[in-house]
């Protein structure tokens, strides 16, 4: 770290950078690009769900041989649904969210010059980039991309005879995800080591902002669970290519018996969900951390129950690794296991409730500064509660029987982890944009973006619960084969209209984001009057973050509106005043 002023070329500064701030921007831009693809796909399949058999020039233009006269084929419908899920969960909400903000904020908020290993960090990003390229290129495979759902349950995902997407498309999916997991592990290890080793003088674990706690714990969950998905994927590759029978047994398809004997798809389900469930917390915890920070700062109040917030992050993380079976209540697994997983799953509602109440109490008697980041944070709390509560239905094995795999589930997880995590991501972008680009995003566009998105999100996902409760299974290309579901057609049209509205609202964000990078108003050093360390660094980025000594920390990050202080915020680097007690 001795020489921060060595000459940088374009390549080392913008492409193969080892600077965490640049890497964070790379993650964000890649995440946004993948997000555009993912959201666009949802627009396409929502058109199909609302108006099956109707010709759309949009679909004709984009789907080539996978459509007939502007109507998509059932195979490509399933493929789009699959890739939408994959992209949104992994590429946008894992890499795009965690990758962006862990990278940006961990060194800046703990007072470190950079990540523990800048090189590993760079490799992590470029592996993510490579996996994104492979995933996107799988869209152009002749037989179509992977189509077995983002959960890729075999045998459907193992047998090209069962669905065309399980040929080359699935192979690319598996390769892409294997690389993605390698990237994610490198990132996570880096985050953990950095938080443990590189905190500045005085930055004890109980003076860390909640963002850092969230990123730190998220990284630990990732290290524990992602390797299991990698092994699941490897065994699937063996079954697909080398004739093993880990997941397959007794299969008769297209007039012939296959040689597989003795495997079980239920094994795959266990392995998949051992990652798959913690994965939703990998997605939501960073958003929770971001929201905690933004709500405290914009309420001009300390976060309520700081230690309880840390405790709930840790207990959610621990419990998240012992609840995976709630995705498998009707998989044929022993019903006794169902009872165990019901118990652990409903336990997780307790720390979640603590968090929700603590956020609401933080607002109470605050002096709320309604910046766009704050709107999205309040929106986060709302969607997290709405989506979280229906988890009580789905986490209860008995009740899950009749709503499992229906649109009720789709509504639930989109609210609680999809919309909420995206809100957290938007909140983070609006809040830390000045730190990333030295400029401010436009406020008014931010307001429009939030309100249209908020109305559209509930307009989509609230009525969707009813579609599920009417018994309509998810992943149906059309519900025209069942007169029983004729009366949900209207609801589906309403949902699609709101979805298009919500999708269009994101154009406002894109415009605001990209224009502000170049033309936004120049930022001041601490625009939100925040206490945390990142706002003590110069606006213009320097390699090593602080031009001189790294400041030492003397207090926790939430001394907002502390009685006896001249201002309503006190930076963490301010020593305690005479006679002042630490909060």
């Amino acid at each position: 770290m001795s020489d921060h002023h060595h000459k940088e070329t374009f390549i080392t500064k913008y492409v193969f950078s080892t600077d965490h701030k640049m890497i964070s921007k790379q993650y964000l831009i890649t995440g946004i690009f993948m997000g555009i693809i993912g959201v666009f796909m949802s627009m396409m399949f929502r058109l199909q769900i609302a108006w099956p058999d109707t010709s759309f020039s949009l679909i004709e233009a984009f789907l080539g041989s996978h459509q007939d006269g502007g109507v998509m084929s059932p195979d490509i419908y399933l493929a789009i649904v699959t890739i939408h899920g994959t992209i949104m969960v992994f590429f946008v909400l894992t890499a795009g969210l965690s990758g962006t903000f862990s990278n940006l904020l961990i060194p800046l908020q703990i007072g470190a010059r950079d990540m523990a290993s800048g090189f590993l960090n760079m490799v992590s990003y470029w592996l993510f980039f490579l996996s994104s390229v492979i995933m996107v290129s799988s869209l152009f495979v002749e037989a179509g991309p992977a189509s077995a759902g983002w959960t890729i349950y075999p045998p459907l995902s193992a047998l090209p005879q069962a669905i065309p997407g399980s040929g080359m498309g699935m192979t690319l999916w598996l390769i892409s995800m294997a690389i993605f997991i390698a990237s994610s592990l490198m990132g996570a290890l880096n985050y953990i080591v950095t938080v443990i080793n590189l905190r500045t003088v005085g930055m004890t674990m109980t003076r860390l902002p909640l963002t850092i706690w969230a990123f730190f714990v998220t990284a630990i969950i990732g290290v524990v669970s992602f390797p299991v998905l990698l092994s699941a994927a490897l065994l699937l590759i063996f079954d697909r290519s080398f004739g093993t029978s880990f997941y397959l047994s007794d299969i008769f398809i297209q007039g012939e018996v296959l040689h597989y004997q003795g495997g079980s798809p239920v094994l795959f389900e266990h392995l998949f969900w051992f990652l798959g469930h913690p994965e939703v917390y990998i997605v939501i915890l960073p958003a929770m951390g971001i929201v905690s920070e933004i709500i405290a700062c914009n309420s001009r109040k300390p976060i309520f129950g700081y230690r309880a917030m840390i405790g709930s992050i840790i207990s959610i993380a621990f419990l998240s690794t012992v609840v995976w079976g709630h995705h498998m209540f009707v998989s044929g697994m022993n019903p006794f296991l169902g009872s165990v997983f019901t118990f652990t799953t409903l336990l997780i509602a307790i720390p979640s409730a603590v968090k929700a109440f603590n956020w609401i109490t933080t607002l109470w008697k605050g002096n709320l500064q309604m910046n766009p980041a704050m709107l999205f944070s309040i929106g986060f709390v709302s969607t997290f509660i709405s989506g979280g509560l229906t988890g009580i239905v789905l986490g209860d094995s008995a009740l899950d029987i009749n709503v499992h795999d229906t649109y009720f589930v789709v509504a639930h997880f989109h609210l609680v982890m999809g919309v909420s995590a995206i809100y957290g991501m938007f909140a983070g972008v609006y809040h830390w944009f000045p730190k990333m680009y030295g400029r401010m995003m436009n406020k008014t566009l931010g307001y429009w973006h939030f309100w249209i998105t908020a109305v559209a999100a509930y307009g989509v996902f609230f009525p969707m619960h009813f579609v599920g409760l009417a018994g309509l299974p998810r992943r149906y290309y059309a519900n025209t084969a069942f007169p029983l579901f004729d009366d949900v057609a209207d609801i589906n049209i309403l949902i699609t209209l709101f979805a298009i509205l919500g999708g269009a609202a994101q154009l406002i964000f894109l415009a605001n984001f990209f224009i502000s990078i170049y033309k936004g108003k120049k930022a001041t050093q601490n625009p939100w009057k925040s206490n945390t360390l990142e706002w003590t660094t110069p606006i213009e980025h320097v390699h090593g973050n602080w031009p001189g000594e790294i400041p030492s920390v003397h207090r926790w990050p939430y001394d907002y509106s502390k009685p006896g202080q001249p201002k309503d915020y006190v930076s963490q680097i301010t020593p305690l005043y005479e006679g002042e007690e630490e909060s």
Partner: protein
Amino acid sequence: MTALLYILLAFIIGIAIWQITSIFNLKSVIATEKDNNTQGILFAAFGIFFYGLMIFCFWKYSVVLLPDSASVEGVRYDHLYMVTMLVILFVQAVTQFLLFYFAFKYRGINDRKALFYADSHKLEMIWTIVPAVVLAGLVLYGLSVWSDVMDSSDAENPLIIEVYAKQFQWEARYAGNDNQLGRGNVRNIKGINTMGVDMTDKNSLDDIPTRVLHLPKGRQIVFKFRSQDVLHSAFMPHFRAQMNCVPGMVTQFSFTPSITTLEMRKNEKTMAKVAGINKIRAEKGEDPYEFDYLLLCNKICGASHYTMQMKIIVQEEADFNTWLSSQKTIAEVVQEN
């Protein structure tokens, strides 16, 4: 209606573009007191929209929901569901109100200082213990229903039926006079023996294959599920019943039908739903629909996943027995071919 929404959409996009052009003129980038005021009021308005949407959905869409449970076990399911839903809706109503109300009430004013309130063990104990107690109640109730539904070991003389899944069709097999299913394996699939029944097993001979599932009212049925290719899920929503069909293993679910198809057609909620459906069908010039129970596929299984179904007919036990005895056994079917 649709056109109106399109126009609304175009209008909003228009405003967005107009906003974009004025972006660079705006000097203020941080929320002012005026912004706090406007946005706080908007949160109150959004709260009203939020409750309005909830009430609208319950009022308008309750008719599309499934009618009363058609199985004995499902009645307990419905009750558990009601209790859980009431808890959820209560918590939802209260917490969302507090959230939007606080956002409105405490919107920032320049010369006000927020209350420095960092901790309260008492409050935190309350919202740890209260959810814990409520959830404990729901868990205990849920688990009692779950073990009740999943444990069919105490069934007296249950009817045993195999449900067999494949891309993209359902078949079924009754265990016959001996009430014992003959062994099955995909390696036996040949010609008319589409379920791969082992014809050398003496239990197989009296088994009765079918493509329409007839069930007797009032008798417990134990379903054994198999699949020949990929995962499927046998979903019988009217009976609150679902189980995956897994290649290579036999899974099980059990329930006791309590309402015949004819009775269900006369159920008030069913009639309201069917009337709604038929109104829509009449507008499209389609034949009227008559209610039937269904078994659907609820696990993504391939291109025609969305069409995979089997009709279920629940009859009085005497009618069922008459029907069953008129059916050919698998031995007869195989012999004929």
